């Protein structure tokens, strides 16, 4: 494919961080023509693509969930193909909607409930049991996740939740605490293929690399590969980082699916074994060809 064939590709990002840099470098190595657009400068009007938006395929690397979702919705309404698409971004960006999608696909996950009020969440925890977790419906990098060791602590913490501003804050997402064996697993799926998996190791409950967890390669079993691929499909993701945890019996459960994959820790751990940015770039170029046809 020559440059002219792929000039319709744009990459959306408000900042070029290490992962975006790798992706852009991968596109450069493939001699693909593309535009890198700053989402902070975009606006949309309903009904037609912006005159200055001639691209047919957009890779959405916007780091802000709200901007990412609205940009994808606006572009798709104008006939632009977005990867990942808006529906995927909206599902992955909402833990409850992710839980619903995983359950609909029959995939294993920790026992979870959504209380429509803090009191209802507290009642739901009586069924789930303690220790448990409360997680914000939206949010990343382990922010605002708290361990609830017993009912009294949950009751006290939910008083604070009830005092938070905004109706969405009063929806309480609670989940069985799976005691991790000092690690969880990140599996990256691109175009329906598992391209690799890493353990994310941390003594802390939160095993996010962004919080200092370290990564090392995880040999993917057939079970892991199947579950990761099915989880990505359940949320409609072309590109996904599926976070998995092993329970006490060694069974794998899906914790979440991330639509804007951060892969620096993964890539560092995997070294030359896999080129995440290259695989994503190849998928993007292949999809660009389909957009043209």
């Amino acid at each position, binding site marked *: 494919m020559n440059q002219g064939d792929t000039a319709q590709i744009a990459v959306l*990002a*408000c*900042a*070029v*961080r290490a992962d975006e*840099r790798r992706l*852009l470098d991968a596109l450069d190595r493939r001699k693909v023509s593309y535009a*890198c657009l*700053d989402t902070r400068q975009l606006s949309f009007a309903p009904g037609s693509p912006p005159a200055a938006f001639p691209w047919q395929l957009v890779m959405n690397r916007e*780091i*802000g*969930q*709200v901007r990412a979702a609205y940009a994808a919705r606006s572009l798709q309404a104008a006939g632009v193909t977005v990867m990942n698409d808006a529906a995927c971004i909206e599902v992955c*960006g909402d833990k409850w909607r992710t839980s619903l999608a995983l359950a609909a696909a029959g995939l294993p996950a920790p026992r979870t409930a959504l209380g429509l009020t803090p009191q209802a969440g507290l009642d739901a925890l009586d069924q789930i049991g303690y220790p448990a977790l409360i997680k914000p419906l*939206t*949010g*990343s*990098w382990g*922010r605002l996740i708290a361990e609830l060791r017993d009912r009294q602590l949950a009751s006290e913490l939910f008083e604070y939740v009830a005092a938070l501003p905004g109706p969405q804050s009063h929806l309480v997402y609670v989940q069985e605490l799976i005691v991790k064996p000092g690690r969880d697993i990140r599996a990256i799926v691109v175009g329906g293929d598992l391209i690799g998996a890493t353990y994310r190791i941390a003594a802390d409950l939160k095993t996010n690399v*962004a919080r200092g967890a370290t990564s090392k390669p995880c040999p993917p079993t057939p079970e892991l590969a199947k579950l990761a691929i099915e989880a990505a499909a359940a949320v409609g993701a072309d590109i996904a*980082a599926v976070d998995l945890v092993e329970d006490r019996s060694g069974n794998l459960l899906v914790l979440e699916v*991330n*639509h*804007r*994959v*951060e892969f620096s820790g993964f890539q560092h751990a995997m070294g030359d074994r896999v080129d995440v940015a290259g695989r994503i770039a190849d998928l993007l170029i292949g999809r660009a060809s389909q957009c043209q046809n």
Partner: protein
Amino acid sequence: MISCPVCDVAVAIPSQSRLSEILECADCRSELEILSLDPVTLALAPEVEEDWGE
């Protein structure tokens, strides 16, 4: 050489830097954003917002 807008110490700009790329000042550790490439101008990168992440 361009200076860090926070601590005024010289910041090394990698070759083939990109617009909107985030750099870290080696001296004060501030995250800096490349606002333009020719000439290179830097500003303090935006603060992490509530909905940022994966």
